[in-house]
C-alpha cells in the first residue's frame, strides 16, 4: 500500500507541476467563462450605439407613441424617403424608420435604414416596441377598451410533477435532459482524457527503459495501480479547480458588471420582465432540487469505476507496445466500448426506461455514461442502480486483472508489436 502511494504521489506531483497542466487548468475556465461574458459584454458595447431616427409615418398614428430610449431618439419627418437618404448620406448615428401605411392589414412591416446594421439587441427591442404599439392600435381599431384587453393578459406555463413514495416533487424535463447530457459528457471526457494519459505514462516508462529499475523495487501491479490512482487524482484536482474557477469567474463578473447592468435596467423593468425573472428563479430553484447530493455521489462512483476500467485497459495497451503509433492502433479496441455508448445518449434520453437504456446502464463499459443519463433524467429503480454498481465493481476487478496480466508481461518485452492473440496468451499464462 505504501509503495502504491509513493508511486501515485510521484505521478501526481510531476503532472501537476507541468507547465502545460497549469496553463490548461487555468486557461480552460477562462475560455469557458468568456463564452458567457463576451456576448453580454459585446451587447453592452453594442448597446452604446445611438441613433437619431427620422421617422416616416404615413398613417401618423405610430410616431407619436414612439418613446425615446437611451439608444434611439425619434423625430418625425415629412420629407420623402429618397431625400432623407440623400441627406443622411454616409453619416453614422443617423437612421431612417419607415412605418407601414395601412394599419388594417394583417401583415405589417417597417424598415430601419442605417449605414450599418444595428445590433441584435437594438433590433429586438425596436421590434418589441413597435409590436406593442401596433397591437395597441389594432385593439383600439377593433373597438375593444384597452383596460379590458389588459385584463386578459396572462403568463402561462406548464409545470410537470413526478409522483413517488416520498411525495410529490416537481420535475423539469428540459433541465433533466441538460443535466443528463452534461454528466454523461463529463464522465466520458474524463475517462477518455485521463485513460489515455495512463497509456502514455506506461509507454513513457517503457521507452525510457526506467521500468526495469522500478519493478526491481515494486511489484508491477503496485506500479500500475499507483499510476492509475495518481493520474485519477490529477483528473479530480483539475475538475475541482475548473468548477471553482468557473463559478468564481462568473460571480466576479456579475459582481463587477451586475450592479451597473441592473441600474441601467431598473426603469425599464416592466411586469412581463418581472414575471420572467420570477420564472428563472423558480427554474434555478428546481435545478438545485434536482441536482441533489445523491447525484453527486453517483457521479463520483460511476466516474471512478469507469476511469478505473478504461485506465487499466489503456495502461495494458501502453505496456503491450513500445511505439506510440502502435499504441494508437491497438487502443482502437478500447476506444470502441468507450465511444459507442455516447451514440445512444439521445435515444436513452428520449426514453430512459426502454430496454436498451436499461441494458446499457447495467453493462460496465457503458454504465458510467448511460446510468448517469438515466439517473439525471428519470427515477431509476433501486435494484437497477444497485445491480449496475455491483457489475461496475466486478468490471473494475475483471478488467484490472486482465490488464495487470498484460502489463506484467508487456513492460519488459521489446521488439515487434504483439498481435491480439499473443496479448491474449499473456493473460492466460502463469506469471
Amino acid at each position, binding site marked *: 500500500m505504501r*509503495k502504491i502511494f*509513493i*508511486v501515485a504521489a*510521484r505521478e501526481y506531483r*510531476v503532472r501537476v507541476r*507541468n507547465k502545460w497542466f497549469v496553463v490548461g487548468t487555468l486557461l480552460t475556465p477562462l475560455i469557458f467563462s468568456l463564452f458567457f461574458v463576451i456576448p453580454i459584454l459585446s451587447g453592452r458595447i453594442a448597446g452604446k450605439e445611438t441613433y437619431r431616427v427620422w421617422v416616416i409615418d404615413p398613417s401618423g398614428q405610430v410616431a407619436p407613441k414612439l418613446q425615446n430610449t437611451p439608444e434611439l431618439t425619434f423625430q418625425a419627418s415629412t420629407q420623402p424617403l429618397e431625400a432623407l437618404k440623400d441627406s443622411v448620406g454616409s453619416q453614422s448615428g443617423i437612421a431612417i424608420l419607415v412605418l407601414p401605411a395601412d394599419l388594417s392589414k394583417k401583415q405589417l412591416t417597417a424598415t430601419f435604414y442605417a449605414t450599418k446594421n444595428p445590433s441584435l439587441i437594438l433590433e429586438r427591442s425596436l421590434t418589441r416596441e413597435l409590436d406593442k404599439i401596433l397591437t395597441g392600435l389594432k385593439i383600439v381599431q377593433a373597438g375593444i377598451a384597452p383596460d379590458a384587453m389588459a385584463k386578459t393578459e396572462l403568463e402561462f406555463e406548464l409545470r410537470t410533477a413526478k409522483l413517488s413514495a416520498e411525495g410529490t416533487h416537481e420535475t423539469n424535463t428540459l433541465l433533466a435532459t441538460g443535466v443528463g447530457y452534461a454528466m454523461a459528457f463529463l464522465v466520458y471526457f474524463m475517462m477518455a482524457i485521463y485513460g489515455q494519459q495512463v497509456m502514455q505514462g506506461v509507454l513513457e*516508462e517503457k521507452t*525510457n*527503459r*526506467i521500468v*526495469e*529499475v*522500478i*519493478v*526491481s*523495487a*515494486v*511489484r508491477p501491479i503496485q506500479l500500475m495501480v499507483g499510476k492509475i490512482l495518481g493520474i485519477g487524482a490529477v483528473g479530480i484536482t483539475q475538475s475541482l479547480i475548473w468548477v471553482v474557477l468557473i463559478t468564481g469567474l462568473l460571480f466576479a463578473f456579475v459582481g463587477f458588471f451586475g450592479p451597473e447592468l441592473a441600474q441601467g435596467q431598473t426603469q425599464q423593468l416592466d411586469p412581463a420582465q418581472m414575471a420572467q425573472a420570477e420564472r428563472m428563479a423558480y427554474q434555478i430553484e428546481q435545478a438545485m432540487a434536482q441536482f441533489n447530493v445523491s447525484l453527486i455521489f453517483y457521479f463520483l462512483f460511476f466516474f471512478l469505476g469507469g476511469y478505473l476500467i478504461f485506465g487499466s485497459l489503456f495502461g495494458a495497451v501502453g505496456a503491450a507496445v513500445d511505439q506510440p503509433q502502435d499504441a494508437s492502433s491497438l487502443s482502437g479496441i478500447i476506444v470502441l466500448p468507450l465511444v459507442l455508448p455516447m451514440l445512444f445518449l439521445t435515444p436513452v434520453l428520449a426514453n430512459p426506461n426502454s430496454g436498451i437504456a436499461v441494458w446499457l446502464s447495467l453493462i460496465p463499459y457503458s454504465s458510467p455514461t448511460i446510468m448517469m443519463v438515466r439517473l439525471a433524467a428519470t427515477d431509476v429503480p433501486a435494484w437497477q442502480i444497485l445491480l449496475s454498481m455491483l457489475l461496475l465493481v466486478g468490471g473494475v476487478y475483471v478488467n484490472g486483472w486482465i490488464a495487470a496480466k498484460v502489463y506484467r508481461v508487456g513492460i*519488459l518485452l*521489446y521488439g515487434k508489436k504483439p498481435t491480439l492473440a499473443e496479448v491474449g*496468451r499473456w493473460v492466460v*499464462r*502463469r*506469471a
Partner: protein
Amino acid sequence: MNLLEIDRVVKRYQTKLAVDDISLVVPQGVVLGLLGPNGAGKTTLIRMLTRITFPDSGHIRFLGEPLAEKHQAQTGYMPEERGLYKKMKVREHLVYLLTLKDFSPAKAGQMADHWLGRMGLADWAHRKVDELSKGMQQKVQFIQTVAHNPPLLILDEPFSGLDPLNAQLIENTIRELAAQGTTILFSTHRMEQVEQFCEHIALVHNGKLVLNGPIADIRRRYRKSLYRIHTAEPLGTLTLPVGTHEESRSRNEATFRLPDGTGPQALVEALNRQVTLERFELVLPSLRDIFIETVGAENLTAEQAQPALV
C-alpha cells in the same frame, strides 16, 4: 555465509527453456562475473534474483532466507537497458527510488546528497534530468544503484556507453565497494573486465551453468601444457626433449607445448644446459580462450559484433 544460494532453478518461457536447472552459490563479499553469449539466460537469471520474474521451480535464498520482497531493498540493480524520468529533478529522482526501497524521505535525501557530492553532481541536484549530459545521467543511474549501500550489487554491462572518464570513476567506486565487502554480480561479455574485477566466474550457455568457480582454479583447470621462458641472451637453435614442440618465439622469449601427461622437468633440464633461464612459467589460458573452448568461437564473435538486447 553465502549471500546467494540458487538451487535447481528453472524458468521456462513459451518457446524455450531460458534457465535450465541452474544451481549456484555466491559467497558473501565475492565479485562474481556472470558470463555467457546472448540469450544464454543471464538476464532471466538476474530478473529472478531481483524478483522481477519468478522461477517455475527451484529456490533462491538470500543470506540464508528464502528470497522475499524485503530483499529488493538490499539489492542494487543496474539493468543493461536503463533510463531515467526526464522531467524529474536529479535529487528528487534519487529520493523517489530510495523511498520505493523503503527508506524514509529524510534518510533517502541524506543518501542522495552524499552520493551526489561523491560523484561531483552536487550542483546539479535541483536540475531536471533532461538538462544533464549523457555522462551525467549515467552517473545518476549508477548512484541510484548503489546509494542505499546494498549488500548485493547486480550490474548488467555497467560500462556500456560510458565515456572513459566516467568509466574510470565508476570502476574505482565499484572497487571501493568490493573492498568494503559488497557482493557484486557482474554480468558482461567483456572478458578483460571480468579478468580485472572478478574473483569468481559463472558461465551460462543455453540456460545451463557450464562453468563456475574461482577464476584461478578455472584457468588452472583449463591449462594446456604450455610453458613460456625468458632468457638472458638472445635465443639460438635449441635442442628440445622428444615430443616437445616450440609454439612461438621472439628475441628472448619462447613458448613450448609439452606432450600430454609429461611434466616440465625434462624441458627445464634441457634448456638449462643451453641457455641462461631468467624466467620459466606455466602459461594459463585467458578467459577468452576458455570461453571459446566452452561455448564455441561463433558465440564470442556473434556477441562482440552486436550488443545484447534482452
